[in-house]
């Protein structure tokens, strides 16, 4: 089973909303979102993502078993680790790259737990979180995609990843969407 893991920060919210809106209802892979949010926007985020999504979106509980076709959003102020047993574990350990949730943490755990059975996508963002994790995913055989810096609202995050690893694809958001749509075939 393939797992889709997406990280993003400033400028990624409209893209994620768009991805979720355009997915087919029968999208059958589990998807994990690790998105930085403003400290003031702790609540209402998952509701906002749900509004237009064609697939169910949740903030998982610790040890929650993963269901195919569901989307899991890392809760505010928790790191989200993905595990081999297909459960999610949460932790309030120190911030990483000034962030909790940290994308490096979620990506790093995906690299360890899923190996090649995984697609990692890094979107627009204003810091370097996610680059190291994305590289780890690549090194363990995952397919990795970076949003094209030209298109990204804030390019720091995609650029940081491109500096240390060579993604399988550098895609615009519409290419990312059609890639995900084709996955189910």
């Amino acid at each position, binding site marked *: 089973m393939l797992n889709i893991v997406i990280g993003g920060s400033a400028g990624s919210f409209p893209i994620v909303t768009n991805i979720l809106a355009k997915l087919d209802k029968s999208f059958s892979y589990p998807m994990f979102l690790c998105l930085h949010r403003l*400290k003031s926007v702790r*609540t209402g985020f998952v509701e906002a993502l749900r509004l237009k999504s064609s697939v169910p979106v949740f903030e998982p509980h*610790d*040890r929650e078993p993963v269901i195919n076709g569901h989307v899991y959003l890392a809760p505010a102020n928790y790191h989200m680790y993905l595990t081999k047993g297909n459960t999610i*574990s949460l*932790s309030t*350990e120190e911030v990483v790259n000034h962030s909790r949730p940290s994308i490096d943490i979620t990506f790093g755990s995906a690299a360890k737990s899923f190996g090649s059975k995984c697609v990692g996508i890094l979107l627009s963002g204003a810091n370097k979180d996610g680059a190291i994790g994305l590289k780890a995913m690549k090194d363990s055989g995952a397919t990795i995609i970076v949003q094209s810096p030209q298109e990204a609202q804030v390019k720091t995050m995609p650029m940081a990843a491109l500096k240390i690893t060579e993604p399988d694809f550098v895609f615009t958001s519409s290419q990312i969407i059609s890639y995900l749509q084709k996955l189910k075939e």
Partner: protein
Amino acid sequence: MFDENDIKLLIKALNDSGGYDFSNYSLKSFMRRVEKVLYDNKIDIYTLINAVKIDNVFLEQVVRDVTVNTTEIFRDPSVWQALKYMVLPRLHARKEINIWHAGCSVGMEVYSMEVLLCEAGLLENSKLYATDINTDVLLSAEKGVYSCRNSEEYMTNFRKALCVNPFNREEQINIPPQKYFDILPAKDEFRVKPFLLKKADFKKHNLVSEGNPFGIKYDIILCRNVLIYFNQNLQNKLFAQFWDYLSDDGILVLGIHESILGPLTAKYEKKGLIYQKKLI
């Protein structure tokens, strides 16, 4: 680097030399904590294992360092709203209200509770008990002095927890934080007002091995963001113990992203964000 066998040796050493049993901590997160200890001390795992065997002071330090102590004033305001509107009203009839904060860290959760009780007019009748395995955090808890670094978040939490009525968003509630806290950015101090100090009984206690720390029944037990570091067996054991320690209509409050899974689900009724003890 180190592997699971090395971790087992370390866990055995911590148990043999210090009586701390980490064998039922969730292995992954425990390994991450140990990694951090090794990194901070610039030593390898074998040096660490040997050091905890011979140096008790160092062992205690390691125990403190492997715990995760993140906390906030009024962390997750919706939980406090639930307590305010769903739980506290029915405790008014009580002569005495007993509350246990298990894994209280530096005490912010305890002082948040005191504020909530004070606003409800219940503080005088309440007894607060708070425990943690980490003696450093307990010392800060007793002082009630924190850094200002996150004070804006604390204030946002404070307002949401106390000044918003989720059942009637129109309602205007105005409670100035200065009633309870002195915020001194110049000194980088976020201070709990003296009248709230000394109210709670802070005590060192290990949830893994020590049973009921005060030997009484509690109306509310809060154990938030502690069990996420334990494995399922240990979680189940604690859910069973908490059930025993709760009064008949007692309430268990877990972290907002934690839930009771497994055999003990039958013994609690989930009511929104809180668990009610079920008599069966």
